[in-house]
């Protein structure tokens, strides 16, 4: 069973219009790498030049900001929900 990976509209445009994807991997970083490989135009908006999270998106794993976990090294399990949100919002 894969994990689900949800994108905001602004990023779904770079994934052939698909707002919800499925992928698999041992860690969140593995999942992001798989999706980045599948959608090369999306890749630079998921990861920065160092391979870390792109600074203007925030990743949530089952509702928790991954910065409070272990970032891309956070383990994922089948059925997990990963949500990507544009970071510039609120206040």
């Amino acid at each position, binding site marked *: 069973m894969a994990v689900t990976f949800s994108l905001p509209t*602004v990023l779904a445009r770079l994934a052939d219009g698909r707002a919800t994807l499925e992928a698999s991997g041992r860690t969140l970083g593995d999942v992001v790498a798989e999706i980045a490989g599948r959608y090369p135009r999306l890749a630079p*908006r998921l990861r920065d030049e160092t391979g870390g999270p792109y600074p*203007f998106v925030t990743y949530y794993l089952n509702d928790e900001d991954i910065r*409070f976990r272990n970032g891309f090294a956070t383990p994922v399990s089948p059925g997990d929900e990963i949500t990507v949100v544009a*970071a510039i*919002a*609120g*206040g």
Partner: protein
Amino acid sequence: MPTVLDLPSTIVPAGAATPRGPRPLPLVCKLCHAPHPASASATCEECLGPLEPQYDAGRVLPDAATIASRDRSLWRYREWLPFEGKPVVSLDTGFTPLLDSPALARRLGVARAWVKNDAVSHPSLSFKDRVVASALNAALGLGLDTVGCASTGNLANAVAAQAARAGLPAWIFIPHDLELGKVVGTAVYHPHLVRVRGTYDDVNRLCSQVADRFGWGLVNINLRGYYGEGSKTMAFEIAEQLGWRLPTAVVAPMAGGSLLTKLDKGFREFGEAGLVSGAAPRLYGAQASGCAPIVHLVESGDEQVVPVIPNTIARSIAIGNPADGRFAATAIRSTGGWATGVSETALIEGIRLLAETTGVFTETAGGVTVAGALALAQSGKLRPEDEVVLCITGNGLKTVEALQGALPEAPIIAPRLRELEALYGRDL
């Protein structure tokens, strides 16, 4: 596939009603400068950076006398607000008092101290009235028929009140455990009020998804580019009310970091327009120590905010993942200012100090601002020759819980003179 350059200058969402307000200006990315048409979007399609309105550099700007002759509202500065045409709602917001406070100046050890008193902002008693006035006109100009927000309380009050008056349905999302005054002060206007289990940052994430899904105009999410510009009017008013000059320092509370960023922009715009001269004020930001990610950023010299989980009674500024944190830090650094965190005890003392010296009852965020100013003065950041403005952004009646146990209990007596004399004796 069209790029943003190929799109019309204003995008009206599918299903939206005919525009009923002023024409919002096009947008431009603050980071990569990619142009975008006017729309209910706050995120650059190229780099995901923040969008800001793009003003016509050649527009005719008013002089001081012209501004002074206009109605006493934030719309007297309309050439610096993001619209073509006249605003249609929230016409009477803004132009709050600037109070000279010699007693506060003495406590701070500075030459002069003024309080910019948005605790009496119209209609909902916080500076959020300014940003909502701008955002609702943008919503109407874009033809949106529903508005809303993610809020720590004050914004909820402002959206609910102004949307009710404008006849717009409002969806308002708040953390489930906000202060009673903030909840009642929203619910009374009969919006769709939703309490979310979690922190403000959880609410904010949900609202990003709500805006994406439903296309509503969430003022601090997808209307954020227009919304934020309203905060500049606090800087404009300070300059005008000081007699078209600038203070040497300004202290403001920080939550998402937008207010401080827009104060910087406002002071610079008035300087560029020739309405004021001299150095821009040093900008100082204050946060509660229990939620101080921007203070940490300024102190560390880093570029990226490290989010925190808020733990403070200053709920209105309890944002652990501030969207404008890096921009606020840049404004602080570029003006020669600084940032400071204050304890819960200190912010309560700050509320009391402002009340006792200035006759203004502020909420917890205002207590943070006053306590922050005291800390900055004690550390030498504020200097004896300084002329300081403290931005008081909200009203104390909204957060009375914070003062429980902090004030002396008043005695109760029978309605007899001898009981009063017995109680107070020679003090009478």
